[in-house]
């Protein structure tokens, strides 16, 4: 095998010259001098980095390009000198004003999976892809230190360290002797203000969720960004990094053990959402053939978790959420989300988790997590202190990592308190804002949420409202476009059918075949989300409009004035109809799509938004947690307390009196107790003396 120094002598000697020649004479397909133009552009824009395509260098000089992979430090150093020389010939003043030019290489022919990064790559140039999960704030790193050396005999004098041609590495060490006087004695003092500093940032790159082998932990690696690369990506961004693999001791105690890290020379944020799913020409043909099938909607719904019996509405809602509506940005910059959020609340053993796991498998960029979250960052994001370095990091949570995809959140009712606050913003504005420990950031979370939760009392109590049954604030509940309740009620016929299905699954597992294979379905969804942008037709608009107005009119006609539907549901209807059109790869939302959306919305309202007392649909059950009928009773109870308070000498209303007067108006005692409990909790009333209540003023 050829030794490194001999390789250097044979090949690197003319690297500078060859690179200069590359900049001067490389022509692209159109015959243009690509890099001459780029250098001129770099000068005009006042930049100091030149980005080159690896393939261009490979075609120009295969040997030099291969050497760049094997000995990047040396080749890049010479390339940087060549670039400086080139700039000197074009703009001498600019070349002089910029200390060092950087040559940045992009698009290596091969991406190294993070999992395969081993010691054999140390010192080599590699390209990695992954998600940026953590980032430190920007710091400044000394590249050339200025020291003051003072001795009794010779006084004080300044010098730069390390000497000409070298730069400060990982650690800044005190010079062993003064290069001016040669003396090692006296004091050496660093002058940071006079030293040369560059921007520096440390980030953590993690494998993409879809690349992690089942049952394995995601791998991650630290990446150091310097100079113009700092702050070019945010946690949650999918990035491609080209850099040199380096090592550093993992801790001070165990000096023989080293950690790998990447010294980045180029970073690119992937703009192409959903492009990770590769669709070949054959796939495209199959997708188009499938879309022509008149039964495509049914086929897609039937392909969602075929091992799970029934739950057609929920499966349809999940299918629609996977396709999603079309996000819109109005000219004034307002963003309307296209993602459809679905919540399933159900008794234990109703296959909620299985449904969610299936969703994560077929969704492009699908992530499965639980309410507690797998990392400290939980569902949204967190500022975390690194135990070894003491540095603060901004770490992205599941909703940020699934940006552009689907987050299947199981046990959503058990999420952390911090997430409860941040999820509001994540679900509606589709961003996650954080301001802690000096880190202020807003991360993208354009994620569809498909969540499941367990009832608060173990089983879903039909005589209570939805908000009473689940440990989630109504503000979060109201952000879901569709909510379904899975009740485990014994029914002999249905039970026999379910039991038969499950036993068949156990007997002949291979017979549970989806109509569309999961891999194909994933490609189909990806294709639809990428290329299909349905627009509402006037017929569809009329249908949705009529439904909305008709539902609202019901509130005027009924005596209790319960509001069955609000603008939030209207927007949800549009999203559902768009998603339905997308399912058939249609660019127009037809009446058929609008009808499907309305049917699903009705099913949702009837299951989750039904006021058990009045037997009518009341959206306030989801929007405020209390049906309109109850709200009115609560208001009346407050008025009674107010009246009794003014009538009594004590200045408060006795519980007994409140109950008596309320009963005379047809309000039962249990409602009075509940109202008093709620009003005390909300700070509306207070207990002035034992069993006597007054209004807080």
């Amino acid at each position, binding site marked *: 095998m050829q030794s490194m120094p001999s390789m250097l002598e044979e090949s690197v000697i003319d690297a500078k010259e060859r690179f200069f020649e590359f900049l001067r004479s490389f*022509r692209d397909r159109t*015959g243009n001098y690509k890099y001459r133009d780029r250098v001129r552009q770099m000068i005009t824009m006042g930049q100091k980095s030149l980005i080159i395509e690896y*393939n261009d260098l*490979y*075609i120009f000089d*295969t040997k030099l*390009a*291969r050497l760049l992979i094997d000995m990047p430090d040396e080749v890049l150093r010479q390339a940087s000198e060549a670039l400086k020389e080139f700039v000197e010939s074009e703009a001498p003043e600019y070349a002089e004003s910029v200390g060092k030019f950087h040559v940045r290489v992009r698009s290596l*022919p*091969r991406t190294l999976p993070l999992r395969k990064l081993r010691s054999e790559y140390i010192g080599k140039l590699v390209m990695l892809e992954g998600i940026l999960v953590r980032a430190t704030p920007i710091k400044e790193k000394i590249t050339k230190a200025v020291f003051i050396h003072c001795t009794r005999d010779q006084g004080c004098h300044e010098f730069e360290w390390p000497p000409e041609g070298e730069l400060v590495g990982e650690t800044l060490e005190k010079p062993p002797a003064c290069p001016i006087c040669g003396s090692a004695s006296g004091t050496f003092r660093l002058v940071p203000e006079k030293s040369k500093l560059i921007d520096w940032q440390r980030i953590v790159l993690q494998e993409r969720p879809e690349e992690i082998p089942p049952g394995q932990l995601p791998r991650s690696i630290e990446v150091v960004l310097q100079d113009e690369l700092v702050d070019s990506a945010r946690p949650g961004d999918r990035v491609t990094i080209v850099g040199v693999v380096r090592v550093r001791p993992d801790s001070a105690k165990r000096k023989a053990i080293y950690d790998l890290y990447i010294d980045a020379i180029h970073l690119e944020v992937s703009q192409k959402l959903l492009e990770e799913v590769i669709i070949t*020409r054959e796939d495209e043909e199959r997708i188009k053939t499938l879309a022509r099938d008149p039964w495509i909607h049914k086929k897609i719904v039937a392909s969602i978790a075929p091992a799970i019996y029934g739950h057609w509405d929920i499966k349809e809602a999940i299918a629609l959420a996977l396709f999603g509506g079309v996000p819109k940005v109005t000219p004034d910059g307002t963003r309307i989300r296209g993602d459809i959020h679905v919540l399933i609340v159900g008794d234990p053993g109703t296959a909620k988790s299985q449904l969610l796991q299936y969703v994560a498998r077929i969704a492009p960029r699908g992530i499965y997590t639980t309410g507690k979250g797998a990392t400290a960052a939980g569902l949204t994001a967190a500022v975390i202190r690194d135990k070894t370095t003491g540095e603060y990091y901004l770490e992205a949570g599941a909703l940020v990592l699934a940006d552009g995809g689907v987050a299947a959140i199981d046990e959503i009712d058990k999420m952390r308190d911090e997430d409860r606050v941040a999820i509001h913003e994540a679900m509606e504005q589709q961003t996650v804002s954080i301001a802690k420990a000096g880190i202020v950031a807003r991360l993208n979370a354009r994620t569809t949420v498909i969540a499941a939760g367990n009832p608060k009392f173990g089983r879903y109590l039909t005589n209570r409202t939805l908000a009473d049954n689940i440990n989630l604030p109504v503000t979060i509940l109201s952000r879901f476009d569709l909510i379904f309740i899975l009740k485990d009620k014994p029914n002999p016929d249905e039970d026999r059918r379910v039991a038969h299905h499950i036993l068949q699954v156990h007997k002949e597992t291979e017979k549970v075949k989806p109509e569309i294979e999961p891999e194909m379905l994933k490609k189909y969804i990806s294709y639809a989300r990428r290329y299909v942008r349905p627009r509402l037709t006037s017929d569809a608009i009329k249908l949705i409009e009529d439904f909305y107005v008709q539902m609202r009119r019901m509130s005027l006609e009924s005596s209790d004035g319960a509001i069955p539907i609000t603008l939030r549901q209207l927007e949800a209807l549009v999203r559902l109809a768009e998603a339905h059109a997308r399912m058939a790869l249609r660019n127009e939302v037809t009446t058929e799509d609008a009808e499907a959306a309305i049917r699903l919305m009705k099913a949702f309202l009837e299951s989750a938004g039904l006021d058990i007392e009045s037997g009518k649909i009341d959206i306030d059950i989801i929007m405020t947690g209390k049906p309109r009928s109850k709200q009115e009773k609560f208001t009346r109870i407050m008025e009674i307390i107010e009246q009794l308070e003014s009538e009594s000498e004590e200045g408060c209303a006795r519980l007994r009196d409140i109950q008596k007067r309320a009963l005379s108006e047809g309000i039962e005692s249990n409602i009075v107790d509940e109202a008093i409990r709620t009003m005390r909790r909300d700070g509306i009333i207070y207990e002035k003396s034992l069993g006597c209540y007054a209004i807080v003023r």
Partner: protein
Amino acid sequence: MESRLDIMLELVELEYMLRPVRTMIIRDADTIEIDGLKVELKKGVETELPYWLARQLASKDMAKLIETPISLEDIARLHFSVISAKTPSDLEPLPQYFYQEAKTVIQDLEERARKELNPALFEESQKMMQYLVDIIDKRLTMILQSLRSPTTIAELSSRLAPEEATLLSHLNTVLRKWKEKVLPRHQRFGDNDEP
């Protein structure tokens, strides 16, 4: 008489020529019928035609192939990955019809360079040719190496182009026959050879 290897390679070429390609008709002409296949030549129509026919129509400026042919950049990328392979297990599969397509593209480029007297095109074809030769050399070395062990042959064969798989199978047969001739009967089928 043609050897089995020749026939197999011809079959691979035939498959390439018969594969359907998306084609755009760019000039109106009468409908043509070839071997029962009716082709309506109407300007602006996009259709799927066998590759040989699409090329014929393209050469007469009646149609345009929609698929993008393999480029110098594509071959350079492949060259990088083939040359980086250290063992047969590192070898990656080539794109479908790679050899046939590369051969056609190089021939077309050479012809264009001659016609247009364009040195850049000539240089491009030369570079492509050099990459192709390197790729073939490297992959042949791996194929020859794999002949020493049947397990490697099995592992490698799924990653070979049809032309390479044909060659590997042919060489394997020749070697077996050769061993049958030169070795005494009880030594012919060692651990690594099948009877």
